[in-house]
């Protein structure tokens, strides 16, 4: 459970760097995540936004929701563009054309832009050790093009390209463990967050931005349209994802793992699955299989934490 309840939210900055009035759907967890992340980042940032929901909803010509410098990139070259901007900033400072000021390059990309199409550019940027923060907004499918499966789609979820039916249970592969891939690059900071835990999310984004070197924050963003859930349950579904152990919140700092939300006991995965239409077709056997896998993955994580 998050520590801060009613009074602390009043102390958070009221300045919105991600302006309201954008075109995100009702109950969008991703827009919430971006808003909180932008509050934590402040103004001295350059945001590099890959193609995806947040690019589509925030920048319909001639409007923009971004009150900070922002550049749109393709799916596949986000990591490369961020590297270029970071290197460019360094050169401009070295040549004395701009005073040395801390400007952070922050990438915001969806799960498709991170774990499928943009993976090699990201891997290259992490390997070269550029000073940037990568924020992956994971809504577990290609939502803006019409809910096509990605490698981040969980087992058993029904999508338009992995539909559930008589002969299929929907997605038949397990979710790619993207934070582990980022951590395998031996970067200084990797964390997972969820907008249902806003203070935890803001602290992790701020920490990632403050660290010198590449940092990676993976944010689970509930998508009521693609997950076929009620828009008013966005926050609850996010919390349940954490409490069932499906998406544990942790951070890895210089190889040391730490659990952010330590629960005495996990809820059954059923609590999380039953609120979403994309898992409606699942038989009890499949749910058991998911539960077994979740327990196994959680135990693996606990080994790393200990």
């Amino acid at each position, binding site marked *: *459970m998050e*520590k*801060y*309840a*009613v*009074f*602390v939210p*009043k*102390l*958070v*900055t*009221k*300045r919105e760097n991600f302006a309201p009035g954008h075109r995100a759907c009702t109950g969008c967890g991703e827009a919430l995540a971006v808003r909180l992340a932008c509050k934590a980042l402040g*103004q*001295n940032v350059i945001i590099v936004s890959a193609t995806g929901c947040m690019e589509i909803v925030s920048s319909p010509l001639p409007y923009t929701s971004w009150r900070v410098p922002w550049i749109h990139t393709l799916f596949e070259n986000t990591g490369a563009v961020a590297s270029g901007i970071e290197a460019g900033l360094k050169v401009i400072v070295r040549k004395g054309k701009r005073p040395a*000021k801390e400007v952070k390059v922050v990438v915001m990309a969806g799960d498709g832009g991170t774990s499928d199409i943009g993976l090699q550019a990201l891997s290259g940027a992490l390997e070269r050790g550029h000073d940037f923060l990568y924020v992956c907004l994971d809504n577990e499918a290609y939502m803006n093009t019409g809910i096509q499966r990605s490698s981040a789609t969980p087992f058993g979820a029904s999508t338009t390209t992995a539909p559930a039916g008589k002969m299929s249970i929907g997605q038949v592969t397990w979710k790619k463990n993207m934070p582990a891939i980022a951590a395998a690059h031996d970067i200084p900071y990797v964390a997972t967050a969820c907008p249902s835990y806003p*203070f935890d999310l803001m602290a992790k984004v701020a920490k990632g931005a403050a660290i010198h070197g590449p940092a990676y924050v993976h944010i689970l963003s509930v998508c009521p349209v693609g997950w076929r859930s009620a828009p008013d349950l966005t926050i*609850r579904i996010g*919390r*349940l994802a954490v*409490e069932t152990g499906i998406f544990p919140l942790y951070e890895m700092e210089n190889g040391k793992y730490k659990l952010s939300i330590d*629960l*005495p*006991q996990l*809820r059954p995965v059923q609590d999380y699955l039953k609120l979403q239409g994309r898992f409606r077709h699942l038989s009890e056997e499949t749910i058991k299989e998911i539960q077994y896998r979740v327990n196994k993955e959680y135990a693996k994580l606990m080994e790393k934490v200990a």
Partner: protein
Amino acid sequence: MVTLTIDGREVQAEEGAMVLDAARDNNIYIPALCSNEAIKPYGACRLCLVEIVTNGKERLVASCLYPVEEGLIVKTNSERVMNNRRTIMELLLARCPSLEVIQDLAKRLAVDKTPFKLEDKRCILCGLCVRACEEVVGVSAISLVNRGIDREMASPFYEFPDACIGCGSCAYVCPVETITLEDVGDTRTITMPNPKMQKTEFKLKKCKICGNYWAPEKQLDYITKTLSLAPEIFDVCPDCRE
């Protein structure tokens, strides 16, 4: 709207806004430790000193407390400002040499050593926690007591603060991260930087359905009382609530 000049740049600010906010809105860096936009400015840390020109005379003011004026000329990095700021930073560094935030800020302001006698305090007496407790939470459980060199942040008579509801606002708002909050099992411990104070521990409420501990009992009692809610409303945690 009011037009003023900060560091040679003409900027616009709303009437009644402070110079610090106007500068920050325009991405002009002024260091400050004791400011938070939800809390009334207080001018305790003095790091936000700037030089203003009024009637042809230059003087130093705390920018967090100086409202913007039409045609005001502000300098945030003149030699006089930098000298004063460095001295203040040296004093803070001498008072709290072990605090990471102070060390980082000193490095940023190019202060690497201090000519003053070193102390080992863990509080800079900015009063943010005290003001948050009073203005935002409305309980005034802690206060700044004594005067001069004896000034410190404390609860009444250094005893367990009865008014405290364990919300953690002080820990969140503390600019030097010296107030800490930790939940272990069914107790929440808030550690204050004043060694004379008793430990502040709170019992956490257990959810009737899932059995997780989720908020201090005192805080929930305070909320039920101030909002006149039904007493059983917080028996279950927000996740189990229908």
